[in-house]
């Protein structure tokens, strides 16, 4: 009896151990480093140094802005694409596969793809020149054009990571019985009303999952930004990297890591609160 009851825990133990060793341990370490001072005591010195840095305010603003712009954009796009997919009978899987191709590419490679398009001698400039819209190469990704740079990062991120939202939402949409839509249609709901009254509320758990996942990843945005803008567009993860490897200052880098973790947790908590699904409404 006892051994049978213990078995599931025994089987779960390796994965727990794995997580503890490779995730919780380094996390604890990062906290320790972030909150210690060179003398060996506890202090907020690393956080003070982080906050006093010239790039800090920019990095925080840029990261938050990126999250605020990219995540809703991706959610809206994925919802739209998901609804469109639901409207076609044949070739639905093909469309889904094509749209998810960017998922298979690393974010570094995705950055390079967009760099090839947007750099001084990139495809975009060639095209604009060929059409006679510009006289010579235009700098899109420079320190002097922060808006264009920001837009480029947004576009690249949307292109790269909308598919994961789409996959989660499409999976959720497929769980909604067809009869709900038919009933809604018979009882007078227009296409928009069906979306608003049936799709959205029943998709809430999927939307929640997608938002949490995408927001956490958006707070960690790094490779695409580095490739397209270097440190011309400072972001939190980029600063952590710079402090760790350029300035060889693990303390401040860890402080950044702790900050990213904190805002991610806060966002997750917010989503869980705002998109709470009533227990009794799950049929």
């Amino acid at each position: 009896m006892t051994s049978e009851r213990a078995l599931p825990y025994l089987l779960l133990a390796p994965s727990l151990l794995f997580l503890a060793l490779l995730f919780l341990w380094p996390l604890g370490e990062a906290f320790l480093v972030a909150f210690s001072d060179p003398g060996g005591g506890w202090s907020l010195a690393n956080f003070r140094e982080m906050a006093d840095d010239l790039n800090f305010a920019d990095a925080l603003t840029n990261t938050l802005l990126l999250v605020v712009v990219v995540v809703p954009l991706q959610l809206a796009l994925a919802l739209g694409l998901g609804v469109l997919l639901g409207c076609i009978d044949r070739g639905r899987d093909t469309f889904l596969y094509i749209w998810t191709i960017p998922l298979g590419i690393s974010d570094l490679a995705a950055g390079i793809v967009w760099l090839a398009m947007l750099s001084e001698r990139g495809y975009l400039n060639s095209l604009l020149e060929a059409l006679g819209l510009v006289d010579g190469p235009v700098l899109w990704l420079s320190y002097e054009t922060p808006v264009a740079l920001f837009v480029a990062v947004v576009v690249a991120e949307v292109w790269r990571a909308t598919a994961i939202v789409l996959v989660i939402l499409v999976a959720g949409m497929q769980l909604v019985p067809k009869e709900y839509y038919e009933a809604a249609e018979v009882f007078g709901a227009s296409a928009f009303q069906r979306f608003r009254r049936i799709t959205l509320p029943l998709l809430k758990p999927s939307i929640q999952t997608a938002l949490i996942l995408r927001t956490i990843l958006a707070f960690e945005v790094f490779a695409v930004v580095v490739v397209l803008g270097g440190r011309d567009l400072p972001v939190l993860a980029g600063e952590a990297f710079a402090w760790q490897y350029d300035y060889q200052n693990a303390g401040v880098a860890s402080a950044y890591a702790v900050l990213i973790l904190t805002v991610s947790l806060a966002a997750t908590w917010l989503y869980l609160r705002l998109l709470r699904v009533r227990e009794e409404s799950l049929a």
Partner: protein
Amino acid sequence: MARILVRDIKKTFGKFVALKSVSMEVADGEFTVLLGPSGCGKTTLLRIIAGLETADRGEVWIGERRIDRLPPRARNIAMVFQNYAVFPHMTVFDNIAFGLRMQKRGSEEEIRRTVEWAAELVHIESQLEKYTGQLSGGQRQRVAVARALAVRPQVLLMDEPLSNLDALLRLEMRAELKTILRECATTTIYVTHDQVEAMSLADRIAIMHGGEIEQYDTPLEIYRNPATLFCGGFIGSPPMNFLEAERVAPGRYRVGGLELEGPRDAGPKLLLGIRPEDLEPVADGGAALAGSVLVVEPLGSHLLATLRLDGRLLRFAGDADLPLHPGETLRLRPRADRLRWFDPESERAVRS
């Protein structure tokens, strides 16, 4: 409330012909049941009337309005689905109010009154604040019916609404549905494969088979005078018996050891259709159908026996007190006024 007219409806799914050419008319306030085995096209016909499916050709009229090109929401219909399709993310109240709100039927106050009226009709007025996930199957079905009645549709469509309920609940809901629907007097089309349900609910039954309506009549008329072999075999439990008959003289046919009066202008070979309860035991001596008793089923109200007669089975329903035992020989004669004749080629009834 209005009549429904279906004219020459055809529907194919790929190579499968679901409906060949179906026409029917349901009178204002009438309760029609579409009855047939699975795959006969009954649900397809219902969904075409609802607008959830588009016919390849043909017309559908409700009242004086041709509706087959209109979207479902413009048809002034309501529907009860087989698996209820009540919305899990809404309370019972919001479910029942759904159609009213979508169609902007009056103020919230008026809607509240209508919802309460419909809820009382199906006896769920005490559950209005609950979510449908907290309800039993029977209660959800009640919500689905209330949601449909609340919009006071011209036409009510029901797709096997009782088939997901357990047997006892189904009987209870059946009786209750009949009361409720009579009260509302809404023109109703009801799909089922359960012939007892059809018999007990319908004003008229349309028996569907292979994408066609084989007979469209009152339950009793179909029971007494089935238009085809299929109708006789599908309605009634146990179904009608069919026995081979051979012509011995014009208007005279031999069935087993019996000579019976049959139709005058029919072929040399016919099938005699006779209901199990229209067979009567005869005392030894007279001409009769003699079969050996295989199984006896005492049902209390009456008795069912299965006999073997010339290598085929014959079902007999008789008085519960008949002393019958397996292995015995039973001699039966059909009631002369209940003989029904069928052409084995066309499978259609031959009127005598």
